């Protein structure tokens, strides 16, 4: 629907456009909170508003561009054999930057394996994300440094961790909030449903942020649900809202509102960011087996970065120098990522036996010693 929508009045000049966006579209698609159309027009929404300075808009733009560039570089590094795998977020930049920028430092984030943009917002050095994809660790950063938990691969598990963490936040009597990311496919997992139940019963300050990128590997969303996912929340007694996941402004506004609700003691919210996985599921995947190019083309017209750029250019939020500088910054980031990854050392063999237990375990000690002796025997032999 979005791509065929007629040009809409400019920012702030019309309530009609916003109201229209809030209603069900003629195609049968359900309502979708939108503040920036695919054509780069600002529209209003009765429930959500946002007013950002030029600097803030540039900030969001920069985040998205750098994230995309980082992501592309990682894909390249995978092709070159430097990474074993990469899960690209291409197309989901607005969903991730908008929601990531809505969080406060003291909030806590529970990501899946694809939240590179959110990690960026949280201040995690992007090179840290690559360790697990290179195979040198299972997650190289300290979750508590940026309140950004490790990537979780087992689908849906982290929704419960986030809920428990939020229960703890509430116990602590502070007004931080927690945000749990998951995908459309994950919505089918029992753990996600149980997270809904627990968070509602304990009124936990958690936002469930579902990036509905239309696909769970090869399965379209209709293999997971026959109604829009945001509606799932209602049956558990908390609000659900669908936002245009390619509209960074709407995502920011909607997520901020949901986090504020959590802070205010009003409990969980489900945000469904309606977006699209532009690339393959991971570098191991071959989407030509299960989806058509036309679908991708349709979504290209809704590109999250392009539409913000259109707005910024038309409204003069940035000059050419900004875009040129950003290009250079992107190149520098890509180079740094490349350099860091290439020089990332393999872990020491003994790392197999480290950090299995915080307080030690006799068998680990025994096996470590045996392993060391065995390794040493080769060293002796080769001497």
């Amino acid at each position, binding site marked *: 629907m979005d791509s065929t929508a007629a040009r809409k009045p400019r920012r702030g000049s019309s309530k009609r456009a916003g109201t229209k966006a809030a209603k069900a579209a003629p195609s049968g698609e359900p309502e979708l909170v939108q503040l920036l159309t695919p054509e780069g027009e600002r529209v209003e929404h009765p429930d959500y508003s946002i007013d950002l300075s030029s600097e803030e808009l540039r900030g969001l733009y920069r985040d998205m561009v750098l994230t995309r560039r980082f992501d592309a570089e990682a894909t390249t590094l995978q092709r070159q054999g430097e990474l074993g795998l990469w899960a690209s977020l291409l197309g989901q930049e607005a969903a991730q930057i908008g929601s990531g920028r809505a969080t406060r430092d003291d909030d*806590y984030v529970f990501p899946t394996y694809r939240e590179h943009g959110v990690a960026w917002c949280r201040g995690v050095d992007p090179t840290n994300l690559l360790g697990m994809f290179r195979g040198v*660790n*299972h*997650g*190289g*950063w*300290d*979750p*508590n440094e940026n309140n950004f*938990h*490790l990537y*979780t691969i*087992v689908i849906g*598990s982290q*929704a*419960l*961790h*986030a*809920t*428990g*963490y*939020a*229960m*703890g*936040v509430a*116990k*602590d009597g502070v007004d931080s909030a927690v945000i749990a990311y998951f995908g459309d496919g994950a919505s089918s997992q*029992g*753990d996600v449903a*149980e*997270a809904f*139940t*627990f968070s509602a*019963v304990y009124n936990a300050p958690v936002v469930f942020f579902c990036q509905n990128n239309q696909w769970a590997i090869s399965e379209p969303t209709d293999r997971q649900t026959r109604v829009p996912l945001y509606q799932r929340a209602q049956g558990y007694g908390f609000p659900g809202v669908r936002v245009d996941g390619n509209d960074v402004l709407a995502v920011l506004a909607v997520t901020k509102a949901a986090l504020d609700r959590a802070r205010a003691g009003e409990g969980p919210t489900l945000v469904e960011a309606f977006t699209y996985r532009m690339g393959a599921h991971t570098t191991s995947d071959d989407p030509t087996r299960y989806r058509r190019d036309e679908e991708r083309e349709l979504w290209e017209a809704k590109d999250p970065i392009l539409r913000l750029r259109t707005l910024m250019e038309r409204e003069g939020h940035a000059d050419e120098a900004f875009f040129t500088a950003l290009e250079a910054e992107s190149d520098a980031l890509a180079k740094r990522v490349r350099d860091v990854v290439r020089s990332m050392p393999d872990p020491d063999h003994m790392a197999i036996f*480290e*950090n*299995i*237990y*915080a*307080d030690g*375990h*006799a*068998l*680990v000690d025994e096996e470590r010693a045996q392993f060391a002796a065995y390794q040493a025997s080769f060293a002796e032999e080769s001497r």
Partner: protein
Amino acid sequence: MSVEKLSIAKAINASLRTALENDPKVLIMGEDVGKLGGVFRVTDGLQKDFGEDRVIDTPLAESGIVGTAIGLALRGYRPVVEIQFDGFVFPAYDQIVTQLAKMHARSLGKVKLPVVIRIPYGGAIGAVEHHSESPEALFAHVAGLKVISPSNASDAYWMLQQAIQSDDPVIYFEPKRRYHDKSEVDTEAIPGPLHTARVAREGTDLTLAAYGPMVKTCLEAAAAAAEEGKSLEVLDLRSMSPIDFDSIQASVERTRRLVVVHEAPVFYGSGAEIAARITERCFYHLEAPVLRVGGYHAPYPPSRLEDEYLPGLDRVLDAVDRALAY
């Protein structure tokens, strides 16, 4: 009070109470742990005294219980989770195995998961299906977990204290058929290491190794054997992961014969691990193969058959006789 005669159930209750008193981060979570005090009354009175915020009746969803306990632990709490019966831990198995057990390693040691999972386990209580199982091997096989089981009130108290204080996830199996067995608990003692076996009875002819509910059975077997002039040593292993192989080895080097007894099915059970490793360690000491007495490769049977299914005095003595016959 310092020394008191307590049942195992009461000792666990006292231990939970102590933990709640000593550390404001300790939480109790589970189904019916609040007003009811748990189906075995092990958490009796705790919600009343510590409030609903610290003794938490949860929704009926084990994965949710363990999953939120993990989140609470990440926030700095120390949840002690109750699983109502052994057979109901499996909905939580994924969270335990893929998250709880691995998160410390996944984070390169950055996060700690001080979560205790209490599971009343084992049979002989005349219950319906799923209420009498011994799934300890399914946890002990998984790195990142510690698996323990007390056999008496003092261990019930102290091992739980130590489990709660540990920064590692601990699966604490409670021998439910022994809940009402009483013995002395010194709540001011200085406990020994958590994962060390205890010589429950000294002997010279053969070692019986057991844990949890089977320790008593083995002590009874040893007493009966003594009347026939056989001197059996009984080891209370206390810990199924890690296993205190040093103590077993030391005992077997003296007695030269070992029988391992547990309620869980023998096939792929803890007795297999003990037999394999002790045989390797004591190959020239053993006069007989390590024999195992345990459950059959069968679902836990209807309760009218449990006496036949479970290892009892006679089956232990039968194995002892077979081992001594070598």
